[in-house]
């Protein structure tokens, strides 16, 4: 990675830039939280953060360790129930959500349940959906922030925990998921990716500074298209880095993990 910033800092900046002002985001701990906090300090002062355990529009004094801990509703405008938050998503009021997983496929489907074996006898048991299936079903735009390697970017997830575009165009709607919702962006340590409107398959939007197309394809277990013209990801500005390091994550909980 270039001098001046690390991969995690770049990922947080990329994620932050995608969050429009005046919109709502259901976030988790770590990168999503840092991205939302950075967005609020740059172009999106009116971005509203929600945590699934019940915190609405908190003023975070520091990174929460859990979406359920008291930091996640520090000086919030409301501390409510998980159902109230999820129902707000279900009504259609929440624009963004950030998710992760052990595996992701070309349609943005995520696995956080098990690796290997057959259900119910996994080789490796992972936590399961948590709120991910719900947030991915009910929020308008799903963002994923993850490291980019072939173990993660797979042709077929071992278990489809959380819906992306499922089997492709029209599949979400056919399953009953709300029309107009779905995967939006994937931010990795190599690139920013989106989805082809027609095929609903993942494709590269921009390569991070110094990263080649071949490198991204080599790290991806499925065929990966490109949106032309393929651009380069803008590196973090010095102002973004300053805010991230001084105000958002001074203890380097997130940006120290790279």
């Amino acid at each position, binding site marked *: 990675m270039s001098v001046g910033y690390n991969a995690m800092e770049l990922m947080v900046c990329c994620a932050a830039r995608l969050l429009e002002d005046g919109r709502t985001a259901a976030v988790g*701990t*770590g990168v999503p939280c840092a991205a939302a906090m950075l967005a609020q300090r740059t172009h999106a002062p009116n971005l509203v953060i929600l*945590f*699934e*355990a*019940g*915190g609405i529009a908190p003023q975070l*004094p*520091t990174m929460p*360790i*859990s*979406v*359920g*801990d*008291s930091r*996640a*509703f520090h000086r919030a405008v409301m*501390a*409510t*129930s*998980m*159902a109230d938050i*999820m129902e707000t998503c*279900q009504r259609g009021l929440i624009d963004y959500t950030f998710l992760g997983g052990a595996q992701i496929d070309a349609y943005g*489907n995520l696995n956080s*349940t098990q690796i290997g074996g057959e*259900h*119910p*006898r*996994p*080789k*490796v*048991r*992972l*936590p*399961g*959906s*948590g*709120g*991910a*299936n*719900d947030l991915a*079903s*009910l929020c308008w735009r799903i963002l994923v922030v993850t490291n980019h390697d072939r173990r993660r970017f797979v042709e077929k997830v071992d*278990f*489809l*925990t*959380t*819906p992306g575009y*499922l089997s492709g165009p029209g*599949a*979400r709607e*056919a*399953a*009953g*998921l*709300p029309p107009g919702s779905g995967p939006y962006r994937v931010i990795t340590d190599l690139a920013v990716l989106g989805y082809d409107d027609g095929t609903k398959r993942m494709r590269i939007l921009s390569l991070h500074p110094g990263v080649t197309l071949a490198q991204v394809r080599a790290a991806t277990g499925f065929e990966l298209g490109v949106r032309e013209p393929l651009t380069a990801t803008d590196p973090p500005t010095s102002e973004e880095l300053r805010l991230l390091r001084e105000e958002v994550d*001074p*203890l380097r909980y997130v940006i120290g993990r790279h």
Partner: protein
Amino acid sequence: MDLLSQGEGALFGDPSSNRARQFFADKPRALTDKVMTVREAVGRFVHDGDYFASGGFGCSRIATSVLHEIVRQGKQRLQFAGHTATHDFQILCAGNGLGRGATLAAVDISYVVGLEARGLSPHARRVMESGEVAFTEWSNFTLALRFKAAAMGVPFLPARSLLGTDTFRYSAARAVACPFTGERLALVPALYPDVAVLHVHEADCHGNCRILGTTVSDLDIARAAKRVVVTCERLIPNDEIRRDPSRTVVPFFCVDAVCEVPYGSYPGNMPYEYYSDEEHLRHWLAAEKDCETYRAFLEQYLYGVTDFEEYWQRCGGLSRMQELRRQELLLNRPNGETG
């Protein structure tokens, strides 16, 4: 409203609202004094084979004292709702796979074995990968809705998540088309736990409860469960409850036992009271890596103590609690309060 598809997961518990009504018909409703010790409450209200549910959010506002007591009393073959479960699940898993039978027999999973930003629990993974625990998949919202259905007294509620995924396939949900709009929906069956436990800030002797901060699914769990054990940081007079009835979030007739347990969510976070003890949680996690080490750890902190107070005394006692209170209230800033 045709049945379009259905999950193949096992349905633990009975979603019938008629049969639940028969139970609730005989549940005592008078404003009696329900104060007792945690040992007595667990002894009387948690039975082998029960479906058990636990409030809070994994490591925030959890009823640690009751979870420890369940394992200490060697309760067996519980069914459990793994709804945002983290440290609570870690504790229950201590009753499996270590030569003391099996506290857990079946789990409705939304989130287990994980500890959010803290990592994964090695022992919970051993338990869940052993094959000795049956499980069915859900999500946080749909499991919350299963409690809400029971709280409402209906056998199911509709949701717009789960659909199209393996989580649905291995759940016990069903998909239908809405008879009014044709929209496809997942229906999730009511979940009436046999017994549930909540930790709250304040309660009176009858079980009227106050909670500060996010309520997660506690209000629905309290109403859904057939028997409810409440632990509270502080008992307060019924007069204080009546002074401001808008602050009561669980009414007394849901509650069977009230136990006053200061620091009752330790080592979890209790909003406005104390932050989580990340050091002790790291110690716990590290101890789990090896079964022998874990047995010794549990002997020291769980089996070898007589009650919850002795546990937190062994974890640093009052001065540690004061430090966690300072962290919670951000009194240590700007030096960084979670270091």
